[in-house]
């Protein structure tokens, strides 16, 4: 006897509201911006070759926000470095707009986990760097840079040096610096990892605002599940040893996103699914510490 209304009371990550389903349908109709095809990366070590990435494949559509998550050692940083052209694949290829990626280039902006602002340049000069090396005149570069600095809300600090800024502000400058080059795609390698929880939440909503106003595709590497669900259209889950794609999840949480959605059923369902993928079915193992007491435990501590 089949009674679907009795079985499916709790939604899963696959249940999408009609609006969300429509959104994904439209997303897949957009042109493919980035295509990763059978990508592999092997490292030579003293103990023989180690496979860091094994036949990775995915596509990112124009103006999509894709997050990569995975436990440490799944090669997600290697992957994004290959996409940026800072590392190279040992097999497979990366196509951006149909052209193979070969070394770093202006069409792929990157925001790093460490603050990579040039300490000898002011905020304004940091943002003009890409325009300068691209051969833009100083005046024009500065005018353009101002617009980007305004976009990330730091016009008051245009003349400040990086050491005078907080961590969150530095990363906003880094985002402005990358975007000023008009890249096709923005690669972000755990850029908010070093920030405290509050600043991080702030930065996430800044990023979503920027993304709304700029024609940019974002690939974001992170290890925080909530952050991924809050930001992403789709989440690519990577598994370790060797790094490979475990699943690609369409996030069913409707846009515009809001931090309060983290308690909604679809958010929780997605998070549960991601957690089971990353940690597997087995519970996380915590070693039992040896019983060794310097002091009698209270009733309350027991």
């Amino acid at each position, binding site marked *: 006897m089949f009674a679907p209304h009795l079985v499916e009371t709790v939604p899963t990550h696959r249940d999408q509201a009609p609006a969300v389903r429509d959104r994904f349908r439209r997303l897949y109709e957009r042109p493919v911006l980035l295509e990763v095809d059978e990508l592999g990366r092997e490292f030579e070590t003293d103990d023989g070759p180690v496979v860091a990435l094994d036949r990775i494949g995915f596509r990112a559509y124009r103006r999509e926000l894709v997050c990569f998550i995975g436990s440490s050692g799944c090669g997600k940083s290697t992957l994004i470095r290959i996409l940026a*052209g800072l590392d190279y694949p040992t097999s497979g290829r990366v196509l951006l707009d149909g052209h193979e990626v070969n070394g770093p280039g202006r069409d792929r902006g990157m925001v790093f986990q460490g603050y990579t602002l040039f300490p*000898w340049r002011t905020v304004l000069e940091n943002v003009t760097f890409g325009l300068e090396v691209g051969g833009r005149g100083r005046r024009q570069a500065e005018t353009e840079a101002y617009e980007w600095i305004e976009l990330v809300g730091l016009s008051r600090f245009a003349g400040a040096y990086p050491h005078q800024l907080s961590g969150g502000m530095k990363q906003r400058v880094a985002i402005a610096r990358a975007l000023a080059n008009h890249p096709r795609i923005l690669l972000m390698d755990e850029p908010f990892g070093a920030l405290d929880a509050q600043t991080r939440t702030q930065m996430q909503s800044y990023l979503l605002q920027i993304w709304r106003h700029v024609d940019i595709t974002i690939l974001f590497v992170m290890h925080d599940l909530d952050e991924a669900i809050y930001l992403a259209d789709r989440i690519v889950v990577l598994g370790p040893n060797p790094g490979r794609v475990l699943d690609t999840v369409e996030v069913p949480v409707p846009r515009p996103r809001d931090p309060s959605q983290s308690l909604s059923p679809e958010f929780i369902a997605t998070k549960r699914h991601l957690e089971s993928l990353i940690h597997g079915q087995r519970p996380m193992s915590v070693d039992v510490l040896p019983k060794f007491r310097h002091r009698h435990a209270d009733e309350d501590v027991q």
Partner: protein
Amino acid sequence: MGFPRRRQPEWLGVRKEVPSRRRAVLVVLSFVLPLALWSTVSYVPFVWHPLVRIETPASVSYFQRGMLVDRDVFASENRSAAAEGRERAQGVRANPIYLPAPHEVVRALYMAFKTPPRLPSEPWLHESLWHSIQVIFWGFLLSSLLGVPLGILCGAFPFFSKLFEPFLEFFRYLPAPAFGALCVAILGIYDAPKIAIIFIGTFFQQVLVVGNTTRKLDPSLLEAAQTLGANRRQLLFKVIVPGIVVDLYTDMRVLLGWAWTYLIVAELVGTTSGITYFINQQARYRNYQNVFAAIAIIGLIGLCSDVALAYVGRRLFPWHAERGGTSLLTLLGRCFRPRKAEPRRTTQPA
């Protein structure tokens, strides 16, 4: 203003920041303490003073007024004089001639610029000094013109590092003074061999030090620049050079100190001249206060030029956040300023 009074930090906190006022006191003390020690040895008669300066020779035939004799000799002569019923010699305790008192050195320092040299052919102190400074300047300039670019190339490109550094690593262990005779044979006897010795002493270290400084540049800055579209030349001139310039400046300050050491060696080669010649001449005349004066001048020049360079450095590199190291000048300035609460570091919102 409205803040509660901060607790004074303890004096001997392990790796704890010392408040600026206290730091100034310590800086002053670091000069005052050795001076005080010197003064004690010089002016307190019962501290050390192993000799006796004769004031009245009296019956001791070989004593002369102003002569310095051992305390034991003085005592035994006086004992025998007393035994024979002769008049006893008079004298005061004194230090050896090679340890002049501070005021003698200060006077010598002042007089050195006023009294003409003994022989008409000998240079004045300031002429000797000026000569030395010129030799250092040219030696250091030539070395830097070659060494800094080469060091940056070695640091930036492993190709150059592997090509040059092994040989430089070998060559820097060859003592520069050992090339003295060779330099004279090749370059003659005037200033050229001296400049060459300073060059040899500085150059090889310089390339290696600058190379290491360049390698210490955060590689992620280079990667960031690459993702922004910088090519190789732009990486070198827009990232590496400005990125290391602060550390490079500090390296140069240290290396300049080494150049002074090699100056002393260089000036003993070929025609003796410059400040070392002055020191040797004065030692020969047993004018030890002049020797000390000349040494003190070298020290002062070194210290002043370093303080000046540090000051200029802070002006040149405004992005370089002060990391606890405040300059001597600012510290001394703070000594004379009224005590006020240090401004609290404000943190900006993200």
